[in-house]
């Protein structure tokens, strides 16, 4: 039985970044990943850094109310964190923060931009509303149908295949153990803390750990790990579609999004365009459950919709050859906001999952590590606490 301070379950961005920040704070950390490091949504997403309120949130602006203010306040914190990362992590992460444009194609959509710009400006996020011609002066490839755009100069993108690996490598340098191919089989708690029983998939060798803190960073599959700790976590898998085109000389400097349609587009350092924006893919079932290992299938209608939206907003994309389309599975919560913090009914059991996990993953991890090490974080995480779903665990948890 090996004693550590914290065991992290799930080797995606949230897990590897938490391992890094906890190790940096002096904790002894073990990270256990069932598949390979970065094999889930952290490595499959399209790498957008979207600090503006997104389409998926603006659609529910009235229901989310002041949560949106908090979301934007956190975005400012995340911008600062991102600017620090290249100097802090081992290895290149291909971070580009050249700005993002969220476009509108109708008067009603321009009104949506104005509505969100008011919230964003109130919280100190730098945004600027442009009319169609001004947007096309910045981005001549935008279609004539673009009536307006909200520019956020801090937006951009980062390479999802490099970021998690850089966090894992930096965490290892500070002494963290990161184990891939290791499946957690049971979690139990007594007066001394948590006992974590896992198994190396290849050798069958048991791995037994004890720790004061267990951190569930299993992403879309966080509810499964919650079950091992006898708690309900409302996290549901959703599968999305991403595509990459052939390479071009640099032509598209901004992250392009749409306020009323599902779209994200960017040009990466190698010259390819990545196109996504939340178009669904088909989750695979195994029996009555969603499979966490089969991957999700491409839905051709969804792919066509994604590419047609891209071509409507940036007509020049119509001529580009599509190199590859792939899918990834992320987790969504009932209120679309992440779940971060300790589960009251299972002391020492923490969760960090959901809610724009790529853009905000490093910040969630950093704040959660502060909460674990110092008892409180330098930026309040209370709005994202699992306590808001505490009623689900009234009859669950650890006695």
């Amino acid at each position, binding site marked *: 039985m090996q004693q550590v301070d914290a065991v992290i379950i799930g080797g995606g961005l949230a897990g590897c970044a938490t391992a890094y920040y906890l190790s940096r704070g002096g904790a002894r950390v073990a990270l256990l990943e069932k598949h390979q490091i970065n094999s889930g949504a952290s490595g499959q997403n399209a790498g957008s850094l979207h600090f503006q309120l997104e389409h998926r949130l603006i659609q529910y602006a009235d229901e989310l109310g002041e949560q949106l203010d908090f979301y934007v306040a956190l975005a400012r914190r995340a911008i600062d964190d991102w600017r620090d990362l290249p100097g802090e992590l081992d290895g290149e992460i291909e971070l580009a923060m050249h700005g993002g444009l969220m476009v509108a194609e109708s008067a009603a959509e321009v009104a949506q931009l104005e509505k969100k710009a008011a919230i964003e400006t109130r919280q100190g996020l730098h945004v600027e509303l442009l009319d169609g011609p001004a947007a096309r002066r910045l981005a001549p490839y935008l279609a004539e149908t673009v009536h307006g755009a909200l520019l956020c100069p801090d937006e951009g993108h980062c390479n999802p295949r490099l970021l998690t690996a850089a966090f894992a490598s930096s965490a290892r340098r500070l002494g963290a153990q990161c184990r891939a191919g290791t499946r957690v089989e049971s979690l139990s708690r007594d007066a001394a803390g948590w006992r974590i029983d896992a198994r190396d998939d290849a050798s069958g060798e048991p791995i037994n750990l004890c720790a004061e803190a267990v951190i569930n960073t299993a992403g879309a599959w966080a509810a499964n790990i919650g079950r091992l700790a006898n708690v309900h976590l409302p996290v549901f898998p959703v599968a999305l579609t991403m595509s990459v085109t052939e390479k071009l000389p640099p*032509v598209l400097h901004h992250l392009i999004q749409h306020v009323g349609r599902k779209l994200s587009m960017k040009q990466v350092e190698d010259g390819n365009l990545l196109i996504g924006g939340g178009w669904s893919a088909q989750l695979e079932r195994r029996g009555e459950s969603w499979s966490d290992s089969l991957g999700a299938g491409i839905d051709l209608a969804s792919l066509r919709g994604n590419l047609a939206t891209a071509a409507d907003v940036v007509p020049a994309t119509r001529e580009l050859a599509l190199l590859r389309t792939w899918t990834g599975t992320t987790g969504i919560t009932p209120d679309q906001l992440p779940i971060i913090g300790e589960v009251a009914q299972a002391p020492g059991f923490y969760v960090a999952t959901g809610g724009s996990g790529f853009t905000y993953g490093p910040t969630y991890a950093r704040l959660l590590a502060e909460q674990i090490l110092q008892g409180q974080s330098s930026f309040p995480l209370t709005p994202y606490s699992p306590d808001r779903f505490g009623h689900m665990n009234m009859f669950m948890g650890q006695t």
Partner: protein
Amino acid sequence: MTRIDHNVTRGAAVSISIDGQVLKACAGETLATALLAAGVDSFYRTTKGTPRLPFCNMGSCFECRVLVRGEERESWQLACMTPVADGMQVHTGLTVGDTLAAAFHDG
């Protein structure tokens, strides 16, 4: 490369223009066939200027792209999947990235 004529029945003659030069091809041939028969040695060029020729001849590798001028606009086509048509105007050996990028600058 020359066409085999002995004991072979080919489609009707059509005229296509390759980089401004008019060439005879046969209906039913693909553009890739006509270009290879004409001795074209660079269908397009990569961003770094390397000339490329068809590899798979079945629409998968995208190495046979040529710029075809249609009635309304130019578009990149896979030569191996495009049948020749009378009056077709084709441009070869262009740097694909540059011409695709130009469309972004023009809006």
